[in-house]
Every structure is written in C-alpha cells, then in structure tokens.
C-alpha cells in the first residue's frame, strides 16, 4: 500500500501576523515555521500508524513550496515518512497547488491520499476536494477516524451536530482532523534517519491560477474590555441587551 501525505508549511500558531509590500505579502520576518498541525498530528501520524500495522506500506510526503520548506519536510520524514517530493513552486491559489499534488499522485499511483482538514494560514479546506476531483476519486472530508481492512476503508467523519460512518474502497482521498491520531514528537533515531531519506525536488507542471490575493488586512483591534462588577450582573445583561444587542 502506498500512502501520500500532503504537507504544508505554516507560520507557528503564536506567530505575529503582519504584512509587507503594501499589504500583499505575509511578513515572514522572525516567523517560526511549522508543519501545518492538521497535516502533522492527524494525517502523518495516522499514516505512520497504518504503516506500523502493515510493514509493506510506504509513506510518501508531498509539499508545494520553495527550498525554505525543506526543514519542515525533513521534520516530517523524521516523524516517519519514507520519502518526500517537493514541488518547487509557490502559490496562494489552491487550484494551482492541488494540480501539482494531483500530478505527483498520478505519477506515484497511491492507494490513499491524506490532507489535513485545512491549513492554519489560508484556512481554505480546499486541497483534498480539489485533488480528489482532479483524480476522479471519492473524497471523505473532516475525518475523525480511519480504519482499513484490506482495500476497504471505514471512515468516521464529522457532520453538523454529530458524526457519520462511511465505507469506501481504496483509492481514496481523506481530509483529517482531531480524533485521527495523537500527536508524536520525532525521536533521535528518526531525526538521524531523516537526514538520508530521499527528498526529491521536482519542477511544477503547467496549471492555471484561478484566484489571487489582492490585499491582506488586519481586523480592527478590540477597543478594550468593558468590565462589570460581579455584584452587578444586571448591568452586564443591560449592556448585552441595549448596547451590544446580542441578547
């Protein structure tokens, strides 16, 4: 079985968000980069668990990004990927990125493709669905559990106010979220092994860019909290009703 895990490089959750070049570019100055948490904690770790249950399984990682994405992909290899492919391109357009991943997926004929439920920078939740469509494969989104028996996958996914169990045959695209697996940290053996694992850079294929970011912006800062005495909750209710019109 071959598993492809999509890995995205994102700013650390606590990173200061600012923009440069007339608000058209993310200001990467001093920013700590991490593997997108959903890609790491859920997609990659679940893939590693599947491999632990089936030693014949192979985990390939794919990322679309410049050479500066390599420390991230090395960390993912240290956690347990077998080899990695970096498509040497940078884009904010999900369709362009999905087209690159779909091309890698076609070349490698994978049984299973995992993406995180979204990236914590663009929050698009789009790559999994687009890749599935480009490959004409079924797509199960926002999965919280994934079990495999031969070629049959049993996947629990979130629905509004509950969950749903789906069954589908591989090949399959799945977007993953909390519940899939528990976060791991790379051990020294993994870190050493990752140094020599194959990390191949390939050039992008031609693909359309359907969207572009005209400008970024920051939401207006909160004016400051209005504190109410704990002995005067009526005042809070009054403010919520009259001023905020929230109740």
């Amino acid at each position, binding site marked *: 079985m071959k598993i492809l895990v999509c890995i995205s490089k994102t700013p650390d959750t606590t990173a200061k968000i600012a923009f440069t070049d007339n608000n058209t570019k993310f200001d990467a100055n001093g920013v700590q980069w991490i593997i997108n948490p959903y890609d790491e904690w859920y997609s990659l770790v679940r893939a590693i668990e599947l491999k632990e249950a089936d030693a014949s399984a192979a985990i390939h990682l794919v990322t679309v990004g410049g050479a500066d994405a390599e420390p991230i992909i090395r960390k993912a290899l240290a956690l347990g990927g077998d080899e990695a492919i970096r498509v040497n391109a940078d884009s904010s357009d*999900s369709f362009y990125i999905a087209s690159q991943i779909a091309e890698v997926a076609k070349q490698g004929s994978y049984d299973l493709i995992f993406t995180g439920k979204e990236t914590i920078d663009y*929050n698009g939740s789009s790559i999994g669905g687009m890749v599935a469509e480009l490959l004409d494969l079924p797509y199960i989104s*926002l999965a919280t559990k994934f079990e495999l028996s031969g070629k049959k996958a049993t996947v629990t996914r979130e629905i509004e106010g509950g969950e749903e169990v789906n*069954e589908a045959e591989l090949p399959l695209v799945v977007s993953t979220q*909390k519940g899939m697996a528990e976060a791991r940290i790379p051990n020294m053996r993994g870190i050493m092994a990752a140094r020599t694992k194959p990390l191949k850079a390939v050039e992008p294929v031609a693909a359309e860019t*359907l969207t572009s970011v005209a400008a970024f912006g920051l939401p207006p800062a909160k004016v400051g909290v209005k504190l109410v*005495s704990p002995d005067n909750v009526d005042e809070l209710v009054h403010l*919520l009703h009259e001023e905020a019109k929230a109740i």
Partner: protein
Amino acid sequence: MSVLIYIDTAEGHIKKSSIEAICYGAKIAEQLGTTTEGVVLGAVNDDVAALGKYGVKKIHHTTGDAFSQFDAQVYTKAIAEVAATTGAKVIVFSNNISGKAIAPRLSARLKAGLVAGAVALPNTDNGFTVKKNVFSGKAFANVTVNTEVKIISLSPNAYQVVAGEGTAELVTANVAVTPGKVTVTNTSKASGDIVLTEAEIVVSAGRGMKGPENWGMIEDLAKTLHAATACSRPVADAHWRPHNEHVGQTGFAIAPNLYIAIGISGAIQHLAGVNRSKVIVVINKDPEAPFFKAADYGIVGDAFEVVPKLNEAIKKLKSTA
C-alpha cells in the same frame, strides 16, 4: 446567466447556513443584475418553494435516491450539471461541512475560482474580489477570482438573514445520476441540541469549572439563552465534555453573535477558534487571564457565583421583553 445557490439539507431539513447562503446569493444577483436560482438534492420535508421569501426565484430539485446519502463526488457532478443548464456565473455554497466537501471539487471540475469562507459581499467595482478570513481569524484577505465562473462558500453566521415575500418556482432537476463510491453505514447525532457551528449564541466553559459535575449551571444558562454549549480543549481532552463541543484551533471554529467564555483563560489556540464571534463576554476569576484582551465585556469573578446570577438576570429580562 444566474447566481446559483446550493441549498444544503440534513435529515430532510434545510440548514440555517443555507438560508444565509440564499440571502447572500440573492444580494449578489441584485448587484450583478441577474436572477437567483437554487439547487436542492434529495428528499426534503420542508416547504422548498417557501424559500422564495429569501430571494431565490427558481429552485431545481431532484428527489433521486442517489442523494439520500452524502457523497461529495455524486453531489458535485449533479450541481455541475445544474450550473451548466442555468448558465451560472456565480455559485454560492455555505462553507459548512457539505460546502467544504463539494465546493473545492466543483471548483476543480469547472476550473472556476473558489473563495472558501467568504465573510462579505463581493466587490465588483474592478473585477470580482471577496473578503475572507485567513490566519485563523487573525487577518483577512481580499481574494480576486480570475475566472469567468466564480464559486463562493460563505462562512456560517457571516451574513444576515432577511426574509421578504415570495415563492420560488420549483422545477425538476434532470441530472444524470452516477453511482457513488462511498456508503454511509451509520449516522449518530446528539439529538435536540442546537448545532454549535450554526448557533447564534454559544456558552462555553473551561477548566475553571473544576469538574464535569459542575456543568449544570452552564447548561442552564445555555438553555435560557437558546444557546449551544461549547468547551475548551483541556476540558474535552479530560473527557469532561464530548469532543464535538471543543472549540479552538484543533476543534471547531465558530463565529456566533455572542460567545460567553466561562473559566477559560484564552490561550491563543482557543482564540483562533472563536475570535470571529461578534461579541465576546469573559467571566474569569483571574484578572490577568489573556482572554480579557480579546473580550468586549468581562466580569472578574467566581463563575460559581456569577453564572447562576447571570442566568437569573437574563431570565428576568426575557420575562419582561
């Protein structure tokens, strides 16, 4: 040419998030000087034609059995067909769970640019640019769609529902049904509860509640406010509350009109899931809790004393209103 809205259902009922999408789509149609059409897949118990009061003029409906269970691949193909027959120039989804599964597929299928999670109407003065949240609500981006057909998925609770008059014309959607590859074998739902991601008011509590046995007052307050209940990550991880109540970076991202955080310190990961709430109230006994910096209103005090008093005060307001 039209604006086409995908109207999503659950258990035969039209979702509130889809009604928001209809109102939003109808406004775009008005901006562009075109008509508003909708598509509904599968059997519906609600009165579909009555959705006309939200601005949709014509609804393409199929009750085919193929749509009795959700399969993004099957749904995408059907919506693509309706989009072709209606000559849709803008296709609107709610960025709810179904929208997140279908809209990207449709975008790739039609090579139509997608703005996922829009929070405002498009700006059509110079091209077609739509505002969406990025960096987990810490920033926004104005995204320009460069293709002739545009797809927008609207963030839940980001657009005000306005009901007017009117009835929509119902037409049968003649879509070729392709057999799906996904089978739904089981569905489980917390019955009777208000859906967290659609709720207008959310009452949320954290470790400050000390233990699951103390949640009665949280549930009472939620009941008085017709609110959904939520919790912070440590609470879900400790199994004090079910995981489907967990809001924050790894849990649900929500944007209610009112978010009441009780005994939650307000770690950045928690804020990432709730910072799009319109009004935030924080109740915490620690005046240094970081959540106060993100709040509109706050009470520095003991939740065990404040919450029951707040509940009574709101009951009093509701009884006089």
